[in-house]
């Protein structure tokens, strides 16, 4: 097990005051909190910062930590001294995905569960909730998908110590899940302690970037490149949808950016989403004299000022 230098994690000296520690934490929370941070690895960084703060903000825990001595370096191979530290529990009820401390932390403050055992057999603890992000393709959402999720859940062994137990859950995702959708799998999180109920597993769905489609809620967008004459004269073109190819009529006189709706061709749902086809006009390059002549001819036959609205 590796030693963790909590002072180094927060970037404060060993004689930092409570106010110094709090200030350092606030600053790092702003930098690494996963809800706002753009830093790579911010989740892991924030977890470290949180754990360090959890110890250093509490006089008892800080004292116990300091007793390990000042000679340890971050990452040193560490064996805990005999005897337990202060209890590290929290009074939060319910959701408990916060007990995700490092092995180092659990060892230093190891009697946090053990202490309760003398008091009676009725003390129970709800298992830990887990959150997982899953990335699926738009196609998976369209058709429904099955995923096998593997993760570690902390479990307390007979001595009240935390162990990471691998767990695998098969999930059949219904059709039409959307980005940002959260899914709860009751009692699929960490097991409860002393007969307490198991925690829940929460999934958060994200879509993998797609080369062709993007989704807004249940609606699907596709950019469709067309030629100027298809835009001007109208055309029937074949366009891909999540459910396969369909024929689409481009009305004559269409401009770039025009949105054409394929009703019900988006992601399944009540009601199903639509597919929007956004026209992108691709102007052919004029490579030789004959081709340039065509454009000049257009300029002559079709005068007009597309920038009229920009005047004044």
């Amino acid at each position, binding site marked *: 097990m590796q030693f963790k230098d909590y002072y180094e994690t927060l970037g404060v000296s060993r004689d930092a005051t409570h106010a110094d520690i709090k200030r350092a934490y606030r600053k790092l929370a702003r930098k690494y909190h996963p809800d706002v941070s753009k830093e790579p690895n911010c989740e892991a960084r924030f977890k470290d910062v949180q754990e360090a703060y959890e110890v250093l903000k509490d006089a008892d825990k800080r004292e116990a930590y300091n007793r390990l001595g000042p000679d340890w370096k971050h990452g040193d191979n560490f064996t805990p001294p005999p005897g337990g530290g202060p209890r590290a529990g929290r009074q939060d009820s319910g959701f408990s995905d916060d007990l995700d401390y490092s092995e180092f932390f659990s060892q230093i403050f190891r009697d946090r569960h053990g202490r309760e055992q003398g008091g009676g057999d009725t003390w129970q603890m709800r298992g830990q*909730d887990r959150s997982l992000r899953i990335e699926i393709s738009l196609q998976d959402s369209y058709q429904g998908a099955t995923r096998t999720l593997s993760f570690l859940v902390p479990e307390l062994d007979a001595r009240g110590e935390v162990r990471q*137990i691998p767990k*695998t*859950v*098969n999930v*059949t995702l219904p059709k039409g899940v959307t980005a940002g959708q*959260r*899914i*709860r*799998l009751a009692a699929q999180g960490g097991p409860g302690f002393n007969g307490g109920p198991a925690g829940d597993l929460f999934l958060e769905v994200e879509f993998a970037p797609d080369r062709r489609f993007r989704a807004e809620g249940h609606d699907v967008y596709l950019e469709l490149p067309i030629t100027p004459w298809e835009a001007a004269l109208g055309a029937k073109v074949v366009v891909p949808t999540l459910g396969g190819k369909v024929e689409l009529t481009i009305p004559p006189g269409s401009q770039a950016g025009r949105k054409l709706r394929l009703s019900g061709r988006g992601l399944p749902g009540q009601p199903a989403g639509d597919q929007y086809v956004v026209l992108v006009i691709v102007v052919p390059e004029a490579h030789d004299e004959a081709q340039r002549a065509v454009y000049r001819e257009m300029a002559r036959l079709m005068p007009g000022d597309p920038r009229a609205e920009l005047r004044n």
Partner: protein
Amino acid sequence: MHEQLHAELWLLDETRAITLSEFCGASGLLESLVTEMVNEGVLVPHGDAEHTWRFSGACLARAKRALRLKRELELNWAAVAFLLPVLDELRELRRQQQVWLLTR
């Protein structure tokens, strides 16, 4: 110790409406805490009176997130109620920016 199972799932969206006691059962939260979160505007159930409150599935995810934010950033409920929609908007804007960058 591998456990392999097919789990029953709940979509946490607007299609599900549950009562206060169901909400507490599903979340493991005390009624007093859920009531406090409603009174502080963190959770917004349908219905005016406590016994007619109906929570959407999305509330469950929101309650979880609210508790986490409150603890991690040492906020009070007023700050959490203010922050949640702002974070949602930030996330949505970043997502749109991402889409925009990908399609350019």
